[in-house]
């Protein structure tokens, strides 16, 4: 059953919004964490809820012990503890997914879904891909170890890792932004907040069940499902379908977050109006782009600029772009095809950056008419590039 059609889901939304409206300060994230575990246990079962708490406990123990060792000047010991924590988190995570998807380790190892003779390392990395929870684990570990935000207790961490309203399609909230709620006073229920939350929720449901469903019915009939795209036109239809489906889920999550005062980032901002592929990625799945920018692109770009100097920043700028988008590709699926898709996307962004910087030296490019023309033709260029890349990656994914 689709989780948004489960009446218990909406009962939890009402319960959380009432209980959390009275709680403010540092206990807020802990109260939500405890409530959330109960919700997960009822909605998807006690084993997934226990796995989420196990992840939070492994993460908390590792980060707390590493911090203690660091304050005593034992940097090497702290690094060993962090490595052990990473191994424990991967073990809990992959273990749960293996048992959930395959039933047993033997069945997982003998599965030929990824191809024959695939080693355990690739199988484990594949189990980690396409997971919002795993990215939140990474964000929490990086944010706490770099001292940007304090470590919270295991219950609060469990609430951050798998909030019930972000289960289906994210977004990936940043650790620092999520726990900013602990510095806020109680947010009593207000009619205005209720109305705007309901507006977001109804818009999300409309995207998902009216527009995306209509597209599916138009393309494949009442009982049909989206299948392998045979032509580029099919892929274009699939791209629009994915947008309304994914943006619908995300908008519902934003509405519930607003209603319960749980920080929930926006995930889409009219991506098909973007006039460059670079702008598209700041408007599509924004929380994933923000994660990659925060944790991969910016640190790498800064390191390389320091190493090679500001004069060569343009040339070396291609490396962080390729690595950031290579990661995005592999996150979607741990395979060569998706890695190539990500690297291609990184290369397009770099080329766009070079062209943009170069064209700025021509006064004609700053002309109002040229800018209007670019803003009109840009969205068509973006749509074709993204649809063509999706066409390639879908055919890779389906082995066509």
């Amino acid at each position, binding site marked *: 059953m689709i989780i948004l*059609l489960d009446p218990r889901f909406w009962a939890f939304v009402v319960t959380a919004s009432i209980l959390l409206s009275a709680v403010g300060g540092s206990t807020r994230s802990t109260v939500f964490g405890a409530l959330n575990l109960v919700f997960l246990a009822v909605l998807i079962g006690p084993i997934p809820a226990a796995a989420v708490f196990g992840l939070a406990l492994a993460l908390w123990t590792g980060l707390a012990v590493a911090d203690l060792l660091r304050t005593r000047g034992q940097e090497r010991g702290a690094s060993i503890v962090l490595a052990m924590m990473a191994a424990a988190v991967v073990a809990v995570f992959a273990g749960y997914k293996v048992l959930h998807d395959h039933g047993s380790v033997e069945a997982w190892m003998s599965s030929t879904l990824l191809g024959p003779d695939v080693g355990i390392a690739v199988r484990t990395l594949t189990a980690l891909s396409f997971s919002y929870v795993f990215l939140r684990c990474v964000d929490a570990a990086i944010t706490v170890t770099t001292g940007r935000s304090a470590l919270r207790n295991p219950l609060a961490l469990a609430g951050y890792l798998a909030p019930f309203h972000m289960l289906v399609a994210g977004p990936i909230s940043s650790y620092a932004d999520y726990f900013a709620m602990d510095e806020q006073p109680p947010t009593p229920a207000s009619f205005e907040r209720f*109305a705007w939350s*309901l*507006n977001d929720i*109804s*818009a999300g*449901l*409309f995207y998902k*069940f*009216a527009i995306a*469903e*209509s597209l599916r*019915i*138009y393309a494949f*009939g*009442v009982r049909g499902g989206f299948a392998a795209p045979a032509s580029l036109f099919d892929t274009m239809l699939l791209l629009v379908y994915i947008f309304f489906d994914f943006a619908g889920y995300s908008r519902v999550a934003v509405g519930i977050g607003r209603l319960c005062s749980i920080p929930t980032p926006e995930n889409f901002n009219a991506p098909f109006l973007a006039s460059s592929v670079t702008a598209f990625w700041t408007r599509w799945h924004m929380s994933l782009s923000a994660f990659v920018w925060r944790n991969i692109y910016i640190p790498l770009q800064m390191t390389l600029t320091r190493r090679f100097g500001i004069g060569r920043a343009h040339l070396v700028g291609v490396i962080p772009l390729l690595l950031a988008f290579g990661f995005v590709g592999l996150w979607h699926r741990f395979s060569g095809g998706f890695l190539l898709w990500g690297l291609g996307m990184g290369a397009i962004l770099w080329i766009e950056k070079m062209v943009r910087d170069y064209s700025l030296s021509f006064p004609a490019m700053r002309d109002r008419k040229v800018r209007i023309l670019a803003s009109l033709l840009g969205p068509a260029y973006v749509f074709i590039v993204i649809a063509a890349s999706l066409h390639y990656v879908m055919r890779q994914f389906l082995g066509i």
Partner: protein
Amino acid sequence: MNTTLKLVLLFGWIALKLAIVTAMLDRSVVQFIYAGF
């Protein structure tokens, strides 16, 4: 525009979206629309 009118419009808009969603969730409505294609 006064506040009452804004609220009436907002809730009307919400009700319209939810009514269409409810209709789309009813397979017989979908079958009926699809038959018209």
